[in-house]
């Protein structure tokens, strides 16, 4: 009797395995630099992950709060060893680690966010968040009474500098005398530190606080002082309902869905993707109740121009803080220029150090 059962099992097992293999799901892994509850950068990626988890034939997992450096290399390696087919690393500092691991696992697809290196099985991607930043700058410039805008910024890297520049250009398009004061916190996520930095800006007369940070700390500081604020990453209005004007936000779902489909169909190729408003990867959060209809209309009109490709934001003549013209009249800054941007436009008070 036992032998018969054993034989049946031996016959059934391989076929079961075969059917399992045919149904093998695409394993997609995500690595976040901060906790998913940060209501910011990682939270936006996590929302997209949950959306693609719902897709057929896809299973996902994630590791949060992974420090950049050797830790991230280990985590990416672990995912690759656990037969993940597609791995998204969502912070600039993961770049070299991911490249190192990509060389060891040629059959896995690696996608790095906000970097610039690629390999045969590694691509990078980012979003043209500077487009809604420009729009948010317009709102800030219109709503500010003092014309002094405060910006709590993380690290002096091109991505952040570009955002500050776009914000300033937007603010100055509405109020040519507006200035943007920048404070560096040297961290992506530290609610207490970010709040203190915002307070220091409020102390020098800023009456709209914007941020390139992953927590709502600066929003809370603005609300406490009774001034306005611009959020980032996600709609932060629930943290500061009286202060929050709007925010440049991410919507990674359409892009992630596209990459997952490409990998599933086998049509994925390494590239440096930089989608924007037109593709729906970045957007402006809904306006707060305090924004008057005139401002809303002006911003919406500009938004439509950007989506149509008529407004390129970094169109010359644009001068730096010293007055030197960096983008000549009539020229549009190329992507490479934008990706390596390390100078501030006129109107920014602060250094890129």
């Amino acid at each position, binding site marked *: 009797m036992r032998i018969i059962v054993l034989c049946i099992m031996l016959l059934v097992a391989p076929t079961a395995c075969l059917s399992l293999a045919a149904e093998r799901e695409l394993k997609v*892994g995500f690595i976040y630099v901060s*906790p998913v509850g940060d209501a910011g950068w990682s939270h936006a990626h996590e929302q997209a992950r949950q959306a693609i988890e719902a897709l057929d034939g896809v299973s996902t*997992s*994630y*590791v*949060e*709060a*992974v*420090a*950049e*450096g*050797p*830790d991230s*290399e*280990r*985590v990416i*390696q*672990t*995912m690759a*060893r*656990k037969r993940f087919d597609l791995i998204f690393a969502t912070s*600039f*500092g993961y770049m*070299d680690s991911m490249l190192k691991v990509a060389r060891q696992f040629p059959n896995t697809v690696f996608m790095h966010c906000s970097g*610039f290196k690629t390999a045969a099985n590694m691509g990078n991607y980012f979003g043209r968040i500077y487009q809604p930043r420009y729009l948010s700058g317009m709102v800030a410039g219109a709503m500010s009474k003092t014309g002094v805008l405060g910006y709590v910024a993380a*690290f*002096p*890297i*091109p991505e952040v500098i570009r955002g500050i520049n776009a914000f300033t250009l937007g603010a100055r398009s509405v109020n040519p005398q507006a200035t943007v004061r920048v404070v560096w916190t*040297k961290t992506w996520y530290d609610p207490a530190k970010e709040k203190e930095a915002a307070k220091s800006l409020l102390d020098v007369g800023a009456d709209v606080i914007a941020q390139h940070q992953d927590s709502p700390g600066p929003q809370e500081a603005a609300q406490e002082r009774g001034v306005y604020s611009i959020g980032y990453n996600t709609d932060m209005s629930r943290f500061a309902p009286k202060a929050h004007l709007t925010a440049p936000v991410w919507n990674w779902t359409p892009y992630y869905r596209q990459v997952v489909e490409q990998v599933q169909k086998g049509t994925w190729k390494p590239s440096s993707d930089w989608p924007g408003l037109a593709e729906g990867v970045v957007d402006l959060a809904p306006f707060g109740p305090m924004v008057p209809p005139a401002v809303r209309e002006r911003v919406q009109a500009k938004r439509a121009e950007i989506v149509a490709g008529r407004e390129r934001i970094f169109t010359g003549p644009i001068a730096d803080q010293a007055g030197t013209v960096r983008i000549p009249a009539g020229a549009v800054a190329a992507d490479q220029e934008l990706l*390596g941007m*390390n100078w501030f436009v006129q109107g920014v008070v602060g250094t890129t*150090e």
Partner: protein
Amino acid sequence: MLRVVRRPASPGWRGALVVSGSALLALAGSLLLLGVQGVSPLAGLKVLVLGAFGSAWAIEDCLLKAIPLFLCSLGVAVAFRLQIWNIGAEGQFALGAIGATWVALSLPGLPKVVLLPLMITAACLAGGLWGLIPAILRQRLGASEIIVTLMGNYIAILLLEFLVYGVWKDPSGFPMTPAFADAALLGTIGSTSVNWGLVHCLVLGAAVWVLFRFSRFGYELRACGDNVRAARYAGLPYDRLALLVMVLGGALAGWAGCIEASASLGRLQPSIMAGYGYTAIVVAWLARLSPLYIGLSAFLLAALRVGVEHLQLDLQVPAAFGSIIEGLILLTVLAGSFFLTYRLVPARRP
């Protein structure tokens, strides 16, 4: 009722028993906490153990993470033995990395066999200097070494950022130095992913152990650590020892910084600071300042971190969980140590 009575004898093997027992208790408690979250404690334990020890590359990962931790802990322990509370391992680690980077970037053309020892020497000198400054301030001005070393950490990290954002910045514009030349990279042992830093650790650990056990220096350390006044009356050179242990501690932490910059990252960037200096204090304390136990504690703590990553990946446990376990372990060991020095005796009725 119970009375508290001081134990006459020294802990000995009891120490290890209390520490491991407390740690296991903390681990069990944390796993039960997982149960409250909806994750099966047994599944959690399995993922934790298998993730940390279940395969060759898992062990390699633990060793890789333990290497800088071990060296920093060794440095901290050397100073703690003299009851000089060196909280500055983090800053000394940073200075070591800076020293090694300076050599690597200035002299890239040298062959590996010359360049690497030079980098290590520079790292030890830089780290040793960072340990010497608080020691001198303590001696001459009576400044608390706890405060000075702690503040020194912040200064060191800011110095690292200043260099990486400034003179040493990579042409790409991102806050990191250019990649080191191949000659400046500490290689891996054979086909494993573990770098030669492991051998450095074993050699240095053994050297420090011999130093503690069999040398005059070790004897003087023990005497001065137990009772400063008596040692001074006996003519032991306490002041010189104080400076020496801080330099040695700084040099060891600096060596760890060199290994991290050279082997793990291949360049200098702010994310080299992974909190090893602060965790080293926990490890040194848990290991009761003995090099052998430091090795064990460093490995186990590294294994815990690696295992927790697997918990995150397989069971979607939040990242904060790892910190919870570590904190619980320290608390229970602290509480358990009470029983090393005291015991409870039924009070006699008069």
